[in-house]
């Protein structure tokens, strides 16, 4: 089963994303801060990670960069989910190695479409 790691500090958005992804047939592991992402990703090694950018502990862009540089998680595609919509923010996300960038307000249906698209591109 395809495993997705979701990191989001907003409980309502986290629950919504988890619900939507589980409904789409994915196995979801959720955490609420940036520090927990790295530990969880190393132990679970998900097929994809969805990271909020503004989280306590570590921000999503830094976490994404760190996932990229770790040999154990470097292959995991990352989707950044954030309210930061400036060109410079999107640019920083892609530079950090994100595979996709979804801006809040977001459509849950679009999120699932992006997930399946990124997974398909990465051959999973």
């Amino acid at each position, binding site marked *: 089963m395809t495993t997705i790691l979701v990191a989001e500090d*907003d409980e*309502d*958005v986290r*629950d*919504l994303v988890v*619900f*939507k992804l589980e*409904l789409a047939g994915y196995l979801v592991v959720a955490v609420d801060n940036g520090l927990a992402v790295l530990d969880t990703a190393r132990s679970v090694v998900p097929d994809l990670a969805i990271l909020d950018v503004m989280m306590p502990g570590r921000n999503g862009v830094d976490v994404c*960069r*760190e996932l*990229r*540089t770790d040999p154990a998680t470097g292959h995991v595609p990352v989707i950044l989910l954030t*309210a930061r919509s400036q060109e410079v923010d999107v640019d*920083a996300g892609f*530079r*950090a*190695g994100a595979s996709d960038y979804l801006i*809040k*307000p*977001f*459509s*849950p*249906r*679009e999120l699932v479409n992006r997930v399946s698209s990124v997974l398909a591109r990465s051959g999973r």
Partner: protein
Amino acid sequence: VTANLLAGVVYLVAALMAVSVLTIVVGRGIRRMSSRRNAGAAGRARALLVALVADDDARSPLVELVAVDRTTWRSVEPKAIALLGKLRGEARARLVSVFRRRGVVERAVRDLARPSAPRRARAAELVGLLGVADAVPALCRLLDDRDRQVRVAATRALGAIGDPGAITTLLASLTGRRSIAAQLVADALLRIGADAQPALLATIKDAEPLVRVCVIEVLGLVAGPGAATSIARALGSDPSDEVRVRAATALGRLGTRQVLAVLLRAVDTDPVDRVRAASAVAVGELGDTGAVPALAAALRDPGHRVANGAAHALVRLGEPGRAALRRVVAAASPERAGEIEPAARHAREALAAQEVSQRREPVLAGGPAAAGGR
């Protein structure tokens, strides 16, 4: 008799105490049960809320959420309001539908006219989040509310609803006794988007410079190339320095090369440094290498900002611009330093800044590992 009376009083006090204790115990029990029941109902309502926005096919969460009692809805309403701002598409439409069916929209519209300022502000925020187009006239009236928070909430709500019919009132709110911060008004106009263009163009010659600044700033961000002629006219003739600065910047953002001649004229002839500098930077944004000679000449402008802006604009024009800068640097021999040195300094600084920026890019893209590897 006295002893019997005393015994009666003691008995009565004891009975009252027993009844009081019993009342407290039973009351607490009832409250605890009620609290548990409410918490259970709130938890269930929250689960329904998540299912409502996440499940495109389910009908029952909507029906159930519409039917929950008022206490339960109150417990979940703040979360529902918070989600409104985080969602779009069908998920958001379903959420809005719950608010409408529960009568929240009608209540919020009524609350816009309440005597309590916090209540008016909350209502304005809510009708904005819910995108209630019918509330636009009431929100426009609130732009002149005596309470600042209400005016701010109404401005934001009008931006969220995005009705171009509110533009004239929004612009009028920039001035006067109860004025609203220009940044807030500009933000609301930006949210209205490209539909705002006709109304903004109609106001580009407003008597108030602050209004013209705001109009041109927003046009530069939302308008199509069709707005370039009106903005170019403002750059050429507006009496306000600030308006001309914004006009030059807006023309650079629009990127229409047909305004190159107007911008170059401003670089050459505008009496104000800031305007010439903004025009030079805007020329760089247009990306027309035909502007290289004019920008190279502007490196000798007596205004520091103008010469600096021209140097960075030349970098933006790519290799022809950089070549012009290198020629200026090379020509800066010590013997001729008095005449040419300031221009060469600007040229050298712009070339160096571009080199640093080029070196930074791979490091930023690769993160710490790439940085360490260098």
